[in-house]
């Protein structure tokens, strides 16, 4: 007979709210459905219940009892995220799980108990299945969801076991309740018939027959029940006997993780939103940790007031779970272009938000014994994401040479260093061969991007030689503002060298290059654009 574990979160709308706003946990808080005076309380914290607040009351009635009662409306985004988080907790233990309703998840516990070892001496409440239950409770607590656990051979028995789990292990957690294999019918027998949740007409019929408990119903002959109550009755009878009429329906895990919230008050400024975004991203990060994955793509959807939506997306250079990095990306993007900036309606406020993270595998790490220490993929991913956030994706990467001759050209590819060599290579010592002979110690060119426009005086030379620059001075215009100043008499000039590129295209480049040494200002590489006759400096020998 198969074994099933039921992970149940009582007062699920409240638990989902408290997961998003954990600071409200000790307060008198009620979660309501509906608006204004018609708002009905659907769940309340223990503090509120102690003061007389019950479900079904209107918010006005509850506030008459507890004037300082905090109230939050039901939040669909919060509840969906909490439901996903609950399913992910179950998936940590078993690949076969079924989401049966809000705050209710079943998982196939067949063979799982063997992984858990009770302490010695074993007691009635310290079996491997009890240990499994405790591990489930601990995982749920870590995810911010106060859950209860029941383990039995059928869904109904497991669910009832979870609902009736009592006795405290630690804090607010009830101890897991385990129904021994084959004991399901006896466990269910004393329970009232209403636990089976029969259809109305079927329930009325059974009441007329004088059946009050599940046990009474289970004792009826199966064939007689089928002939009198039909297929619905037969299914209910099977459940009453502690047998599942249908097998577990495993869910397909969703590709993306979502976290968000519908805000009670629309937010006009960015800071309070970022505070909430941090909490949401932190929850995403913890869910990714459960799966052992990182966030490769992050999307944000904002619902704006009075109307409109705003959507953003970020491609991460490598999967990461670092909340700070993700938040920095969001902050920089929203600061650069505030929500609704393009809106014609003027000031807008954020009414709801939803983060969607596309998970991917983090890069594996392989250390070496004798080579240089390898970079931690997780840390590298975080660093790259921070640099992306700080500088923009077009300004971070690994450089590559590009075909062509223009010095200002460049190519960037994502930085993904190869694995560290197994043995540290020897580095040539500086004292060894002279630079020119070894190919090291080479004079480099510091490229000026974009080139600095120049004013150049040229002096005619003999008929067989090109006129050479004699004095250069950077132009005093807006583009040269805050750029290095180049000015001075030319001591030595060498050139010109022709550079021609893209003559076949509609943007051909033809330049005459000179190397010039100024009296006191250094060595420069300058050129004259053949088409326009303008002079520019595009490099400094340095």
């Amino acid at each position, binding site marked *: 007979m198969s074994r099933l574990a039921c992970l149940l979160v009582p007062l699920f709308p409240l638990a989902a709210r408290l997961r998003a706003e954990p600071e409200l946990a000790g307060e008198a808080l009620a979660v309501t459905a509906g608006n204004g005076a018609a708002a009905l309380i659907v769940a309340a914290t223990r503090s509120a219940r102690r003061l007389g607040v019950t479900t079904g009351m209107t918010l006005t009635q509850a506030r008459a009892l507890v004037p300082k009662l905090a109230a939050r409306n039901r939040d669909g985004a919060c509840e969906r995220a909490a439901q996903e988080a609950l399913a992910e907790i179950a998936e940590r233990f078993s690949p076969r799980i079924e989401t049966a309703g809000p705050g209710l998840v079943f998982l196939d516990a067949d063979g799982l108990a063997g992984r858990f070892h009770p302490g010695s001496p074993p007691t009635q409440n310290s079996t491997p299945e009890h240990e499994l239950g405790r591990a489930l409770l601990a995982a749920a607590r870590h995810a911010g969801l106060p859950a209860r656990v029941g383990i039995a051979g059928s869904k109904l028995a497991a669910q009832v076991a979870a609902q009736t789990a009592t006795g405290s292990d630690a804090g607010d957690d009830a101890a897991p309740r385990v129904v021994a294999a084959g004991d399901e019918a006896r466990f269910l027998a004393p329970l009232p018939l209403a636990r089976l949740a029969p259809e109305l007409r079927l329930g009325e019929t059974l009441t007329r027959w004088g059946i009050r408990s599940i046990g009474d119903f289970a004792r009826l002959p199966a064939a007689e029940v089928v002939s009198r109550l039909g297929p619905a009755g037969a299914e209910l009878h099977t459940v009453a006997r502690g047998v599942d009429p249908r097998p577990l329906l495993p869910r397909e895990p969703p590709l993306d993780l979502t976290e968000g919230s519908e805000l009670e008050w629309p937010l006009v400024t960015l800071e309070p939103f970022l505070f909430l975004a941090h909490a949401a991203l932190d929850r995403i990060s913890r869910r990714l940790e459960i799966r052992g994955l990182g966030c490769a793509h992050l999307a944000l959807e904002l619902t704006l007031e009075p109307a409109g939506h705003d959507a953003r997306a970020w491609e991460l250079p490598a999967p990461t779970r670092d909340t700070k990095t993700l938040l920095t990306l969001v902050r920089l993007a929203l600061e650069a272009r505030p929500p609704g900036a393009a809106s014609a309606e003027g000031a807008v406020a954020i009414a709801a938000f939803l983060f969607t993270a596309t998970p991917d595998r983090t890069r594996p790490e392989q250390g070496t014994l004798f080579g240089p220490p390898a970079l931690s993929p997780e840390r590298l991913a975080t660093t790259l994401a921070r640099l992306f956030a700080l500088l923009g994706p077009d300004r971070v990467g690994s450089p590559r040479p590009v075909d062509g001759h223009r010095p200002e050209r460049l190519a960037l590819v994502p930085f993904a260093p190869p694995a560290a060599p197994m043995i540290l290579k020897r580095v040539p010592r500086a004292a060894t061969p002279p630079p020119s002979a070894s190919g090291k110690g080479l004079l480099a060119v510091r490229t000026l991007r974009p080139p600095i426009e120049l004013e150049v005086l040229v002096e005619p030379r003999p008929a067989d030689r090109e006129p050479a620059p004699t004095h250069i001075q950077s132009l005093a215009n807006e583009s040269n503002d805050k750029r290095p100043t180049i000015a001075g008499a030319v001591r030595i000039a060498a050139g010109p060298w022709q550079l021609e590129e893209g003559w076949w295209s509609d943007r051909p480049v033809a330049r005459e290059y000179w190397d010039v040494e100024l009296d006191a200002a250094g060595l420069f590489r300058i050129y004259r654009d053949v088409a326009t006759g303008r002079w520019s400096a595009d490099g400094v020998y*340095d």
Partner: protein
Amino acid sequence: MAEAFATPALPLPAVLQRLAGPLAARLRSGRELAALQGVAIHDTPRPAPWSTALPGLARLLPGGLPRGELVELTAGRSSGRFACALMLLAAATSAGENAALIDLGDALDPQSAAPAGIDWTRLLWARPRAVREALAATEAALTGGLPLVLLDLGLPPLPGGRGAEAMWLRLARSARQHDALLVVTSPYRVAGPAASTVLELTRGHARWSGAGAAPRLLAGADGRLTLTKAHRLLAPQAQALRLALPA
């Protein structure tokens, strides 16, 4: 020594004074005391310094640049500062280490820098627009565990000033914490007391080939590398630097 203890009439300072002489004669270091007591002293393993292919530097800093510290290299235009930076990167990446170049001046041209021998796959290139961004990017690179981070501040004027002194101290501390070498190359001193080693490059003459009617060609440049600040450095030391233009 036994006599010193055997004289109870003497006050304690006098006893200590009597002890100091014979002890100083017998022991010159704590290591010897440990040897007398039979206690083994294990040196804390100091990280190996960065070997570089920098001409002249090996004679100034035997072994190379110190890991876990901030090294500042200052130089004016055409003094070979960028060439030294590229050589450092080439030495690190060709040895299988990863490195970051925080390039404030956006000065790297991969095509012309290819002869330096940098393994591009191991180089992270970040191109900030201002000093503030450059410092933040440097800190991010250090935190990311890159063993060599080279911050090139480009040519003056520096966009955004020299950066706050506290930030440089923070970067030096980050380099120590992550056992990384942080090299700052700038036109003038910026890191102040945060730099544990300071090198200055001064420009010499450019070398040209060809004279008279023959076409002139730039052949290279000479400079002088001076170590002005380092541990246990009593006076500045200098070495000639000779750089050639790639063929």
